[in-house]
Structures are given as C-alpha cells and as structure tokens.
C-alpha cells in the first residue's frame, strides 16, 4: 500500500512541483498517472522511492512513513521497488546483461538466481540478442527495455514505470504494458506515468491526472475524461 498525505514538493526555491497531493494506492493495484508535461508525474513517482523528499506531508510505503527514513535504510526501501526511469539510468560501463544483473547483485542474490533471472528478464523484453552490448550501442527503445528488464528482474513488490513506452512503437508499447499487467496480476503494485493515450484508453485501469502539481481527476477509464465517459465507466 502506498499513500501520500497532503504532500508538497518544492525544488530549491521554485514553485511547488506538487501541492497537497493525497493519494492512496492499494496493494496490487495498477494505476496510470497522466497529465501534461512538467506537471509533476515524475515527481510523484520519485516520492515513492525517496528520490524526492517532500517539503510537507507524509509518504507511507508498506506501512512506514518514508519521509523520516534514515539514509542507511533507504536501500532497503529501494530494493522493494523496481523503477523504470524516464531517462533510463543505465550504467554506461556495464553491458546490458550486467546492468540487469546489478539489480540482483545489489540485493545480494546468489549466482544461481542471477543466471536464472537475468536471461528470463531479457527474454521478456526481447533483448536476449543484445545481452553483451553496452547502453551506448543500443537504440533508444532498446535502452528503455533494458531499464524495464532491470526494474522487474527481482520481482519487486512495487513497480514504478516513468514513461516506459516513450521510445517504443505502438506494438512494442502494448507488449510492454501487457508485461506490466502480468506482473501486476502476479501481485506487484504497478504505477505507470505515461503520455500514451492508446495504452491508457486500451487498458481501462484507474487513471490519476495531475495538473499543476495537483490531482485533478481520479477515476478508472481513459486518458481524457471524455474517453472515460464514452467508455461508460463511472467514477467509484
């Protein structure tokens, strides 16, 4: 369970990126965060893995207020969360294989598990043939899929995907969302920040729209409210 209570985020002196956001995401939920560019979607995701610290309010993840987490306990939190970063954040000196394996090594997985899980994850994002390439040798979409593979390789309780299909064609995008959906069905909570109208409309999941740092819409349905109405899905 993820919950934010009246959270505001202020980046050094600027206007608040999030303003009094209260949102509750149940365990096992699949939720889309949508909204115009620069309105606070990534910031909201960063709150959950404590990349961002709120100026005010509480962020509760798995029953703990992580705003008060000591620095040395942050890795524990992050190991339960798989993140697909908007800018991929791949280690440039490591191959695709090593990048994905690193997420397992960091949590102390043994050789056996690494050699079982990494190929499986690469298989899921269709990158087995690029295992020995370095990130700079990949196309944008391939890098994005490496980031996805790394996020899901250790079966995290929470998956945060920030624009996971921005560099993928519609067909591959759909495959990736199906993959996230599968992981969700297996028990992970999945939060996807996206601009992809096709996907949001097609999935008919809960959609939270953020505008100017505030939640302006929270209902199951499509990317736009009109679509939701068209689909005939009513707010809960």
């Amino acid at each position: 369970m993820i919950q934010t209570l009246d959270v505001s985020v202020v980046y050094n002196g600027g206007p608040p990126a999030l303003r009094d956001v209260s949102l509750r995401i149940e365990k096992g939920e699949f939720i889309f965060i949508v909204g115009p560019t620069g309105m606070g979607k990534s910031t909201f995701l960063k709150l959950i893995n404590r990349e961002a610290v709120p100026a005010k309010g509480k962020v509760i993840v798995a029953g703990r207020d992580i705003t008060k987490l000591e620095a040395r306990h942050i890795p524990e939190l992050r190991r339960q969360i798989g993140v697909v970063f908007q800018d991929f954040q791949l280690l440039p000196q490591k191959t695709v294989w090593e990048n994905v394996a690193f997420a397992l090594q960091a949590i102390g997985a043994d050789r056996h598990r690494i050699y079982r899980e990494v190929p499986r994850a690469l298989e899921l994002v269709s990158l087995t043939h690029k295992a020995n390439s370095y990130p700079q040798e990949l196309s944008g979409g391939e890098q994005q899929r490496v980031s996805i593979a790394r996020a899901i390789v250790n079966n995290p309780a929470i998956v945060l995907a920030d624009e996971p299909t921005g560099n993928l064609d519609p067909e591959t995008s759909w495959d990736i969302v199906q993959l996230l959906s599968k992981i969700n069905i297996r028990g992970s909570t999945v939060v996807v920040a996206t601009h992809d109208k096709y996907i949001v409309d097609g999935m008919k999941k809960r959609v939270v729209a953020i505008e100017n740092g505030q939640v302006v819409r929270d209902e199951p349905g499509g990317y736009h409210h009109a679509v939701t109405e068209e689909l005939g899905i009513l707010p809960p």
Partner: protein
Amino acid sequence: MLSLRNWEFFLRETFINVRRNGLMSLAAVSTVVVSLSILGSFLLAVVNLDAMASDMARKVEITMFFLEPVSKIGAQRARKRVLEIRGVKEVQFVSRREALNRLKERLEGQIDFSDIEKSNPLPDSLEVRVFDPDQVGNVVTQLKRMQPPAGVPGFDTPQYGEKYAQRILHFSRAVKALGMFTAALLSLSILVIINNTIRLTIFARRREIRIMQLVGATNWFIRVPFLMEGILHGFIGSALASLLLLCGYYYTVTHFRMAFPFVPVIPVEGIMGHFFWVLCFMGLLFGYAGSLISIRKFLANL
C-alpha cells in the same frame, strides 16, 4: 554481510572497472608511479645524507697525550684500560714518531722540518673513538677520572676538537630533523596529489554511483570496488616506482662510488627489501586513503 559471493563479485567488478576505464587507470597509476618515485628518491637521499652525517660524527676523536714517553707494553696496558670505558669503540696508540710523520705530511713545504726532526717535540698519544658521537662528553669525563695503570705515565687532559665535534653533531642532528620534517611534508603533498587524482577518477563516474544508489545498492556495496580499485592502482603504481627507483639507485650508487670513493653511500642490498615494501605499503595506503576520502563525498547525497 560480507559473504564469499560478495568478494567474488567485488574482485570481478574491480578488474572489469580497471580494464574498461583504461585511460583513467593509466592516469591514476602513472601519477602514483611518478609521485612515489619522487618521494622515494627523496627518502633515499635523506637516508644517505643521514648516513654520511653520522659517519662524519663518528669520526670525532679524543686524543690522550702521555705526559712522558711510554714503552710499548705500557701503551698497550693503557690502551686496554681505556677500552674498558663505556662508549669507547676503538683506541689506537700513536707514537711520537708517527705523529711527527703525520704532521710532516700535513705541513709539507710549509715548514723546514730539519730542526724539529732532531728534537721531536711531539708526545706519544692514544686516539680514542666512541660509538655514539653524542657520548663524547661523557667519555671525556671518564677519561679525565681514569687512573693510568702501574708503570705507565699519566695523561694530559684529553683533547678533542670540541667546537668541531659540536658542529658536526649539530649538523648531523639537523640533517635528521630536517629530513624527517621534509619527508613528512613531502608525503603529505604526495597524498594530496594521489588523492586528487583518485577523486577525479571517481568524479568522472559520479553518475554511475548515483544510478547504483537509485537501484538500491547500499553504500558499502558501491564503495568496496572503488576502494579495491584505489588499492590496486596504488599498489601497481608503487611497485613500479620501487622497481624504477631500485634500478636507478643501483646505477647511481655504482657511478657515485667511482666518482667519490671517499663518500660513504648505502649499498643497494642495504635498502632493497625494506625499501621495496615500505614504498608498496605507502602506495597501497595512499590509494586506499585517497579513494576512501574521495568516494565519501559522492555517496553523501542519497
């Protein structure tokens, strides 16, 4: 927490990093080589200077003039008596004849010796050397108190170049102190240089550290490969520096000995083992300290 599996990972990680960051490794290692070579050369110079100064100091002599001419047997007895005094290393009997010969040699051409040679106004004497130049004063006091053995004439007050001895001692102490002070300062400078270099190699990879943190790696997990890399760079660099210095020293000593046979230098064998390990240890330590100090900064902003 530090299981075998982890160490395996760290070792592989370290070697992969060193290989993939060839340019940085090269820069780090060559900086260590060069800077430790400087430090090492300096230490070698100091050690030798110190040895020379000590050697000079050790040459301070106390001369005991017999009040009257002495027989060979009497001289031997007196010599033994002096040798018993603590701190005395060597005692040599110098007969009046020998003393005159020495003087002649020294003043050759300045004096017409024909007159003097007949009467020989020089007394018999004992030349006393001490182990530790610091002890000259003590030894002299004891020599003054000493009773000559039976059948041997007494001694005049012991003579030694007091001012000269003081100066040499002063000098030798100054060399030691200055050497140590400068060595400390130089070591510190070298540490700064190596630290800067390592900091820059880590700085170039600050984004990687950040990514590792984001993926949930603990700080020590991120830190260990960097520390091992620092140690490796330090060790390789210092080993190369040691080798270079030993070769250079061997060459220099050989030539120096030929040019200045009268100046005492420490032979290569005398410093080899010790020196090699000290330098390697320093390299290792500097590498470790450098990376430890440097990485801290980049791990801070979790």
